[in-house]
């Protein structure tokens, strides 16, 4: 019996101490982490949306943690400790079958896009493997007041009636639109104060867009005289623009304007085009159609060289023939401010 007490009891005692040290005590200590500047609790509707997110296991494919690594730069600044003050249950996730959503409200602020994408992701991203959440929508004949029907492309729309989001879908959208990183002050805070070793490499890759796309471009794509690199331009376009404007440049009728044959894109004066990419658009009138969907600004996420490459790609692809721009033009427009 004594042997049993020693083995079972002794090992359990050792384990209990370790569980306390490595599980419970860090849990208690870190639970008190104060919210970072600008980190707000969720509204009732956003919290409801978060419950929908959890119920349907969104975080099995989407992380909500930006690491201080160059490849995570596209998702926002590195996550800081204070970001998680109101995040219970935590949704950091362990897999990126889909992209990180920490900052999705900034990266894709368009409700029009989010609803179409939730209804069926393949309507916007043909290669997507995300499930369709069409069961969070209803088909109605008459649109209830105050509700905007989902602007589905013909191939995905029902034969009769229009598609409107249910309350769950509206709550989920409200939650997704709450996912934006508040800006942090100072470099120490930038790295959450926890990553001494990585801080330098993260700062070194401050312009990750430029760094990474340079790696992606093949040797065949030598930059032309004005510095335009067609391969880089295409990669950047696919990563940042194609979800709405589509790889074909044709957009989605009624939801996202086409860039193919677009007046601003083909205009000899590129000012409007460059400014749209830098600062985004709201309620834009393109060719007589007013688009409800906002276009996000890229001034904070992309450098001047990258923006010039995107603009030049758009001005030369799909039969477009806008005059090429230089990086200096982008720099000049950026300097003018919004």
């Amino acid at each position, binding site marked *: 019996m004594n*042997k049993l007490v020693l*083995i*079972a009891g002794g*090992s*359990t005692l050792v*384990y209990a101490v*370790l*569980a306390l040290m*490595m*599980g*419970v005590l*860090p*849990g*208690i*200590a*870190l*639970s008190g*982490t104060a919210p970072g500047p600008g980190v707000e609790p969720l509204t009732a509707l956003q919290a409801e949306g978060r419950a929908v997110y*959890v119920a*349907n*296991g*969104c*975080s*099995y*494919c989407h*992380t909500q943690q930006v*690491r201080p690594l160059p*490849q995570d730069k596209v998702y926002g600044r*590195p*996550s*800081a400790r204070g*970001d*998680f*003050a*109101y*995040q*219970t249950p*935590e*949704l950091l*996730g*362990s*897999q*990126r*079958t889909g*992209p990180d959503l920490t900052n999705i409200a900034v990266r894709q602020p368009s409700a029009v896009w989010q609803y179409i994408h939730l209804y069926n992701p*393949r309507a916007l*991203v043909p*290669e*997507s493997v995300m*499930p*369709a*959440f*069409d*069961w969070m929508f209803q088909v109605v004949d008459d649109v209830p007041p105050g509700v905007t029907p989902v602007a589905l492309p013909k191939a995905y729309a029902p034969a009769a009636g229009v598609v409107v989001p249910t309350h769950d879908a509206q709550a989920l959208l409200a939650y997704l639109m709450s996912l934006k990183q508040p800006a942090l002050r100072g470099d120490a805070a930038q790295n959450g104060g*926890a990553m001494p070793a990585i801080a330098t490499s993260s700062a070194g890759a401050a312009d990750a867009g430029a760094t*990474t796309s340079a790696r*992606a471009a093949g040797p065949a794509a030598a930059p032309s005289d004005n510095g335009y690199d067609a391969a880089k331009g295409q*990669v950047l376009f*696919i*990563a940042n623009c194609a979800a709405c404007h589509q790889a074909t440049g044709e957009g989605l009728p009624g939801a996202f304007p086409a860039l193919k044959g677009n007046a601003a894109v083909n205009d000899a004066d590129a000012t409007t085009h460059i400014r749209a990419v830098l600062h985004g658009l709201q309620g834009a009138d393109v060719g007589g159609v007013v688009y409800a969907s906002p276009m996000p600004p890229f001034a904070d996420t992309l450098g001047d060289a990258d923006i010039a490459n995107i603009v030049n790609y758009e001005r030369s692809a799909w039969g477009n023939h806008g005059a090429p721009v230089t990086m200096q033009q982008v720099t000049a427009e950026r300097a003018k401010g919004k």
Partner: protein
Amino acid sequence: MQTGVAAHHSSLGEKDNRALASIFAAYTVSATLWLLFATAVGLLLAYKFGAPDFGAGAWLTFGRLRPIHTNATFYGWASVALVGLAYYVAARSSRISLYSVKLAWIGLVLFNVAAVAGTVALDLGYNDGNLEYREWPWPIRFVFLAALVVTAWNLIGTVARRSTDDIYLSNWYTIGGVLWTCIIALVAILPWYQYGLGQVSVSGYYMHNAVGMWFTPLALGIFYYALPRLVSRPIYSYALGVFAFWTNLVFYPIIGAHHFLFSPLPWWLQTTAIVFSVAMLVPVWGGSANFLLTMRGRVRDLTHSYPLMFVLVGVLGYLVGSTQGTVEAFRSLQEVWHLTNFTVGHSHLTMYGFITFAIWGGVYALLPLATGKEPGRLGLMLHFWMAVVGSFIYVISLSIGGTIQGLDWKSGLPFIQSVVDMQAYHVWRGVGGSLMFLSHIVFAWNVWRMTYGRTAKAAPLVALPVGEAAA
């Protein structure tokens, strides 16, 4: 001291032997049904990567089925099967009857109530926060905890009444595993100290301890009993087994935070986890060497003993999977592999290549001894080869695909490129998964033959119905 293996049952009544056999059989049958269910769900999930619109609607959506697959595998299949084996090993190695047959039945019912309720809850969208492996709503996890407490009580009671002097090493691992897991379950359920980042640290702790302090010790306990029986010689070094026990106990609980490298968790917590992930090589290599040296010079036995082949694959799965875990914990490699499908490959190499093969080896080695019924050789062969080849394809394809995914991200390609690049590997994963699932059907057939099937060699099991045997 290395007795306990060649147990003689003369002091035990026929009634005790039958009761033990029916407990062992019932746990194995119940676990097998969960294996079939969990892997059928897994197959559907794999299929959805090629056909995302297949199986539409809320109840079949990926995010609900995925935790059903993992939890059913963990708590329906592996837990129940290992507890059934642990009971048999405890009673046989202690040369005594089970402390309480009734408690064993109660435990089985509790395990199943928890797994059924948890599965239904998850499918209805009652997911406790997407916190991996503790997604069941907390009242259901209390039922699971109750099953653990019952099991611990019963195992301790059995070993306490042993007629041997020493406590055979297997029981150290199984009793320890059940007791530690009671603590793990409690730490995970109690909500009052888990908010925000605090919960992240608890998730890291829980995720790793739920596998490493539950399945690992139980599976190792099975190795320590089944392997000596299969090769008819004592374990190579009893002392090494004891050494691995204590080092495993001290190192494993510390490494959980390696699931959150580069996260805002304190840097020291992450670094500590990496250091002890390396230290884990001590019990892993020590344990594996012990098993392999026990098998030394018996290569020819392998060719005519499928149970031994299952154990060998399980030991290699333990060695390779755990070593891979150490390697993955390095920051430089985590930078590429973290958040990719490589992790999914790793979890299958360990939960399947190690734990599941260990269970199969144990069941094939011991269940026929309990019931007096053998599976057919064709069934064994089909099961073994489909499971080995299937899981090999599965793990290799996801390891390659996951590496490509990580490199795609590092080279700054658009995210969707990493999805496109995975397509071929998703198909291969499905091929491997299909073979694995087919092998489970054969396993179920083999289990049937070892329990309730007709055989010329042995009398049928007496205690067929669940209720009757509880008496």
